[in-house]
């Protein structure tokens, strides 16, 4: 009986709400880069390869990863002198105490091995220094010519595991390289890895070229050229060298962008002093007009689901942003406020549209939600324009022209932090960030 009574009391107290334990709210932290250790990747035996010895590659791979991570503004690679360089044995069993002493919170290790068939295997492991848990373990097999991609893929794994974002390092940027006096500018298309390596010019500069854009399908670009005094859009396969003119128009066509499935190109065509947006089916080569009216409609950009297009138009009296369905119907203005708005690009994440806000005599990169709410200015300089999103929708690439006329490429995080220069051999403008390579 007493036991049963006790059981009842027991159950009551279990049901009673517990309120005496402290619960403390931490409502803010600091936005500081995470210290991460990226020691040189060891190798079993230093073997010579066409790309250098495996030991040298191990150092360079670590340097690329450190550079990629620090470029995000979210990580701070620790000086390798602060901790002992791991050997092959420590790759799977790191000396965590040493890394904790160096104030690292995460550790990236790996290895470089030359295989008998001439390929390289590059290992990539990420450890949490506090919990000593291994978070990532992946190996990559590459040809000696492609070893940098393994470093970028490792960076992507580490970055996405620690931030939750998807990666963006294994990608390329295409842009217009500029030289010569401003009144007789020479412009050439150029392509490079997102960290500036493997830079190549694609055109000679003989014809004026503008607006290069990557297709989601690898190796394919669209761009605009004034060759033969006929300004029009071309689709160019970098791998085969094949070119395809987009449509047969008597007037100028320009501002091409690919759909997310790579099958359609939207672009502008002028007509009697106005400009309309057209869609071009790449396979069938058929064109279809999407907008119609006495206005300049240009800079179209697809949403990541391919169902809508954001573009700029002056149909309301000044350049502003509009969103319409992919078939051209239902256009609605989304930009309001001070000044003009142009060159919109829809984020691959779908949540934001980046564009150029022109107000107060300046051009500034801004982001806005597709419904027109929440506009945030990100940059503040003389003339920032031509925004382009990284494949993960987190970083925006753009072109900055200073008052003295010099133009360069820059990138910024969508939180407005980490405005940094992308180095190019010549002056640069009109950039476009390509997709993650496969």
């Amino acid at each position: 009986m007493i036991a049963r009574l006790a059981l009842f009391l027991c159950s009551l107290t279990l049901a009673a709400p517990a309120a005496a334990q402290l619960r403390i709210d931490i409502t803010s932290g600091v936005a500081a880069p995470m210290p991460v250790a990226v020691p040189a990747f060891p190798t079993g035996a230093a073997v010579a390869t066409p790309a250098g010895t495996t030991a040298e590659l191990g150092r360079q791979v670590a340097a690329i990863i450190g550079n990629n991570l620090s470029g995000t503004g979210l990580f701070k690679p620790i000086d390798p002198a602060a901790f002992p360089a791991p050997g092959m044995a420590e790759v799977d069993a790191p000396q965590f105490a040493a890394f904790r002493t160096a104030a690292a919170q995460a550790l990236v290790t790996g290895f470089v091995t030359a295989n008998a068939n001439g390929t390289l295997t590059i290992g990539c492991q990420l450890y949490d220094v506090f919990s000593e848990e291994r978070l990532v373990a992946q190996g990559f097999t590459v040809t000696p010519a492609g070893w940098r991609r393994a470093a970028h893929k490792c960076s992507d794994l580490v970055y996405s595991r620690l931030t939750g974002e998807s990666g963006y390092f294994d990608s390329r940027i295409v842009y217009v390289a500029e030289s010569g006096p401003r009144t007789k500018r020479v412009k050439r298309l150029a392509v490079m890895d997102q960290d500036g390596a493997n830079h190549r010019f694609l055109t000679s500069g003989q014809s004026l070229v503008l607006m290069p854009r990557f297709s989601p399908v690898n190796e394919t670009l669209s761009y605009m050229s004034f060759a033969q005094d006929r300004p029009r859009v071309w689709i160019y396969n970098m791998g085969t060298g094949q070119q395809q003119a987009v449509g047969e128009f008597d007037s100028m066509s320009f501002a091409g962008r690919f759909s997310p499935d790579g099958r359609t190109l939207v672009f502008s065509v002028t007509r009697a002093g106005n400009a309309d947006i057209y869609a071009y089916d790449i396979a069938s080569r058929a064109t279809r007009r999407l907008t119609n009216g006495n206005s300049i409609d240009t800079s179209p950009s697809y949403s990541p689901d391919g169902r809508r297009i954001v573009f700029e138009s002056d149909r309301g009296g000044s350049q502003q942003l509009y969103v319409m369905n992919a078939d051209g119907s239902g256009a609605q203005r989304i930009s309001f406020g001070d000044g003009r708005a142009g060159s919109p690009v829809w984020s691959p994440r779908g949540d934001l549209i980046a564009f150029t806000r022109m107000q107060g005599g300046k051009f500034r990169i801004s982001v806005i939600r597709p419904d027109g709410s929440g506009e945030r200015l990100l940059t503040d300089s003389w003339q920032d324009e031509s925004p382009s999103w990284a494949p993960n929708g987190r970083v925006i690439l753009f072109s900055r022209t200073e008052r003295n006329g010099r133009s360069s490429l820059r990138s910024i995080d969508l939180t407005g932090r980490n405005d940094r220069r992308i180095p190019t051999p010549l002056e640069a403008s009109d950039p476009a960030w390509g997709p993650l390579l496969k």
Partner: protein
Amino acid sequence: MTEGRALLVAALLHIALLGALSLGLARSLQMTAEPDVTPVEFVDISDMAQVTSPPKPSMEAAPQEPEPLAAPEAMPDAPPAPEVPAPPAPKPVKAPDDTAAQDAIAEAVAAAQPKRPPVKAPVKDKAGQSAALLDKSKPNAARPRETSDFARTIEDALPKQSRLSAIQAATLEQAIRAQIAPCWNPPIGGADVAEMTAVLRIRLNRDGSVAAPPEYVSQTGATAGNQAYARAFVETAKRAVLRCAPLDLPADLYPHWREFELNFDPRLMT
């Protein structure tokens, strides 16, 4: 006793205990929600003993067991007398003999607990907590002990000094927050992170170091679409604690910060 009568007694006790708990709960909610608006009678400080060290606990002073169920109506509104007046006082004062005495008692309490089989641990804690609710206003009262075995279990399990005054609680929270917040690096800019929160349970040793890895309790704002961000968010919270351990907290209040929860909410950052 017949079955019927036993049931009747049990039902009456149910109702009475629920009533007592409800009242106690209401009071505790009131305290934690508005620590500054506790109904108090203003007491002239000069009347109180100039306490420069935390009061020495004694077995008589410590709450022994659940109060008789009628007691809650009689709870006065005045704060209990031996409250430490100045908030920073508990921390800098570490008179060795006082802490030694407290340590001895705390150890005795701690020693009493492991005697019980582990499965009863949640029972003991809840009992201790409900007892703490009831005891708030009369910590020093000596009470007659019940002789039943179960009651003895409860009384042995109660931590000494289970009552934490509003000022002490606020001080402790401030100290913990001030040490954890600068170490927290939330993944702002991540999708939906602005709307996320996460609760971790922290267990510390006496020296402020972590006794166990921070334990995930709960999280808000996670959806099927933002799982990667949700996981990264929780990990930054865990890392914040591990980075800045050991924490520097008043040893005399160790029973209260031995285990606590942290609610990470980046609302002021985004």
